[in-house]
């Protein structure tokens, strides 16, 4: 045993005793509560761990059961060792960010595994590749067999980097911390090195976790808020279990206060720092509002507990099964940051935790839907979807999506692995462009059909691991139409879209009436529409008249150029396509409409306001 306890012999002996008892217990048939493993629930874990805050180490023992869900026998069992991403500056994680590299130099983190057995025998060989551990059993694992892998591990905890570590308040965040069996999707293992943009993929599992922490520590986890089973000699001993989760995450530390309440039979707990107590009402509104919205639009929240932790994970917020980690204090983005982040991370309880898509290979699937749904939920809860609100100018995530589509330059298909997007366009593509594409799909199908199809997809793939093909199939079934053209062009492909209303011309004409004696006058409006790129979207060409009435014609959008004629009693004053601004992947929204006569007043008003701001700047400059 390589574990190092360089202090307090009494504490050492106690930990050793506790650990030994737990190891013995786990070896003598103490298993997780759920029944046998299956292809949908192919793993369970029993973990015993002791946190040593003085050396920032976590010592543990893991007993994992693995069900061979492939259609063949297996000669290797693969584990992800995420903490090794912070081992040194040569890791893929370190190469992706100067900030992370600096953090690793200052305070590295790693995991070491020891005493590994598979079904009681030592593996034939073991191979460690950065964040991946390959175990080769002495004999192959038969199809549908269950194997038990046991190991001891010790984790050196880094100062908080990317979802993992400790902060200045002495609080700890653990996600993807223990040796996790590589997940399988459609019978194939999903293995990847952990990088800055890579999120996680693992199969649904059951957990039983026993933790020993300092007695003044609070513990919240995927399983809920935990109370110690016993407190002895300065330590608190916790036991928790969680079922059907893709990770068992926990936070612990001395710095939080808890406020709990029940909403729609869900136990919600807010772990907050005292300085942020005044944010709780705002936060509660966002959480309960979004839970109601997603319960209605998708399916019922999948767990009994939901925990929000006031902790800065090094990103705006972080989703974990049954938990959200985010700073409660107001950020630079002003008053909407808190509700928007809370709603975004709540949406991840569906698109990540319960509909567990492959975040490494298809990151657009969860972040895209979550970004899109965040705006929808905000509209429902607050009557507006606002990301930034400054000087009266309100920008929603949808508005940002419009810019993201253009900035991302459509170089990569949305179905691209997180590490393979050009340049630094991961964020633009996976969040903004993906949300814009989903909004466009909503425009193609109509909101009602889209919502029905989305709900079908969510329910059908609850506690499953769908990919983009599953999404396509599900939406095709839900909407009762072939969507191959859309997915091939805009999700698997990189088609660009720009439709332009080139001109609108109304002419007065005379038409002979039926008795050939009288003639009636009418206006014929000709609208010229052009498609600039290869991307095709069905369009409705709408013209508007002085009296507020409109008329429209449907078009499949396929021709490069087309004229549309409308007859009316008065001349049309404008023509437009996509009047609801749903087709956000269209690269120029300004040319989607055209007035018969140019109207300079709004433009002049805007220009004069900009001029006024400049005058004020000059006025202050004049004080020199």
């Amino acid at each position, binding site marked *: 045993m390589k574990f190092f306890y360089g202090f307090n012999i009494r504490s050492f002996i106690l930990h050793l005793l506790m650990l030994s008892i737990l190891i013995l217990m786990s070896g003598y048939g103490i298993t997780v509560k759920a029944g046998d493993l299956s292809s949908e629930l192919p793993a369970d874990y029993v973990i015993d761990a002791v946190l040593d805050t003085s050396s920032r180490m976590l010592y543990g023992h893991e007993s994992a059961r693995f069900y061979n869900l492939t259609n063949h026998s297996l000669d290797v069992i693969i584990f992800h060792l995420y903490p090794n991403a912070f081992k040194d500056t040569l890791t893929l994680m370190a190469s992706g960010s100067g900030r992370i590299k600096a953090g690793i130099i200052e305070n590295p983190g790693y995991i070491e595994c020891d005493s590994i057995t598979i079904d009681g025998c030592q593996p034939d060989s073991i191979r460690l590749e950065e964040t991946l551990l390959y175990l080769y059993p002495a004999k192959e694992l038969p199809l549908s067999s269950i194997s038990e892998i046991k190991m001891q591990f010790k984790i050196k905890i880094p100062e908080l980097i990317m979802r993992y570590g400790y902060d200045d308040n002495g609080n700890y965040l653990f996600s993807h911390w223990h040796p996790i069996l590589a997940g399988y999707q459609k019978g194939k293992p999903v293995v990847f090195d952990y990088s800055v943009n890579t999120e996680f993929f693992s199969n649904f599992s059951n957990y039983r976790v026993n933790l020993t922490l300092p007695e003044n520590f609070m513990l919240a986890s995927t399983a809920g808020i935990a109370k110690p089973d016993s407190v002895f000699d300065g330590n608190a001993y916790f036991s928790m279990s969680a079922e059907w989760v893709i990770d068992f995450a926990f936070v612990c530390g001395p710095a939080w206060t808890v406020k709990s309440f029940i909403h729609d039979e869900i136990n919600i707990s807010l772990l907050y720092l005292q300085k942020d107590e005044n944010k709780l009402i705002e936060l509660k509104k966002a959480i309960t509002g979004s839970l109601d919205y997603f319960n209605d639009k998708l399916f019922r929240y999948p767990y009994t507990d939901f925990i929000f932790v006031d902790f800065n994970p090094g990103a705006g917020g972080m989703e974990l099964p049954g938990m959200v980690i985010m700073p409660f204090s107001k950020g630079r983005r002003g008053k909407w940051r808190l509700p928007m982040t809370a709603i975004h991370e709540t949406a991840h309880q569906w698109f990540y935790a319960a509909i567990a898509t492959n975040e490494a290979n298809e990151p657009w699937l969860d972040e895209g839907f979550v970004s899109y749904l965040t705006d929808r939920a905000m509209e429902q809860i607050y009557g507006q979807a606002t990301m930034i609100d400054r000087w009266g100018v309100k920008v929603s995530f949808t*508005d940002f999506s419009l*810019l993201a589509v253009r900035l991302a330059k459509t170089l990569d298909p949305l179905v691209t692995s997180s590490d393979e997007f050009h340049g630094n366009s991961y964020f633009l593509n996976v969040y903004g462009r993906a949300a814009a594409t989903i909004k466009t799909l909503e425009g193609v199908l109509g909101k009602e059909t889209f919502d029905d199809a989305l709900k079908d997809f969510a329910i059908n793939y609850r506690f499953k691991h769908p990919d983009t093909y599953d999404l396509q199939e599900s939406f095709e079934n839900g909407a009762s139409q072939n969507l191959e053209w859309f997915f091939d062009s805009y999700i698997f492909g990189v088609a660009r879209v720009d439709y332009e209303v080139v001109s609108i011309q109304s002419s007065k004409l005379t038409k002979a009436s039926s008795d050939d004696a009288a003639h009636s006058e009418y206006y014929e409006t000709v609208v010229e529409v052009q498609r600039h790129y290869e991307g095709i979207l069905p369009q409705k060409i709408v013209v508007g008249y002085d009296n507020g009435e409109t008329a429209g014609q449907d078009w499949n959008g396929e021709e490069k150029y087309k004229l549309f004629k409308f007859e009316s009693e008065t001349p049309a004053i404008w023509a437009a396509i996509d009047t609801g601004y749903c087709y956000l992947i269209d690269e120029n*929204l300004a040319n989607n409409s055209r007035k018969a006569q140019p109207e300079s007043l709004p433009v002049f008003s805007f220009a004069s306001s900009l*001029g006024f701001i400049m005058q*004020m700047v000059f006025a202050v400059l004049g004080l020199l």
Partner: protein
Amino acid sequence: MSSPVIKSFWPALVLYAVKTIAVLVIALPLFVYFNEAFGFSRLADDLWPVPGGLMLAEFLWSSRDLFSVIILLSLIVGLLYFLIVQFIYGGICASAFDIDSSPKQGFLEACGRYFKGFIKIAITAILPYIFIISLGDLIGRFLSALFTIVLGETAGWIVRLVVILLAIFILAGYLINLRFIQIQNNNSSLRFAIASSKKIFGKLKYFLALNILTGFMTLASMTMLFYVMILITRLEFGLIAFLLMLAVQQFMIFTWSYFEAFQINLNVKLFKE
């Protein structure tokens, strides 16, 4: 000698005209571009009273190539504006001092005569401005925290802004006095002006009262006009709303220019009483 209230009117017009011309040089190409890009589009209907998110995103994207030109143009115009204003201050300060009785000819002559010294003051003033703004911000933050507790976040922000602006007005008042010292002694030396400014500190209370008063009057007027502007934004957009907005915006600029001139005409009292 006429009162500062009346005497400040024509210099205010001159200062306002300079600001307006400077901005027109920058804004006209911008307007031509806007009109070309959005004049026919219904998206432009979403410009009043402030641009909507989609309109803003579209505008930012479509005018991205124009930004570098506008920034360069703004820097050039800003530099010219700075020089011209320092030039004009010569005439305005001389007039406040009643140095010349023939306004037209004397004004330009005075502009040229004091330009060198005034430029030295203006350039050197950058550092003290950074200091005074930082100091104002520090005090403002402290007071803001107090006001936030009692009256809420918005009140805290207003207090912070007011403290910073008052600090700026006090420094601006001091710089005006340096200019008067140069005029009084016909000496463009900055060092001499600073050394001679000790006498201002002899009348510190009077000096502070004059400049804080000007600051408060400016801020009060600007705040009132700002709220009028907010009211106008609630009108349905049309020619009347646009004209009203334009009038209030330009009146705000004129008001600011007026108080610039007024501060000069008030501070001259320190030298004459």
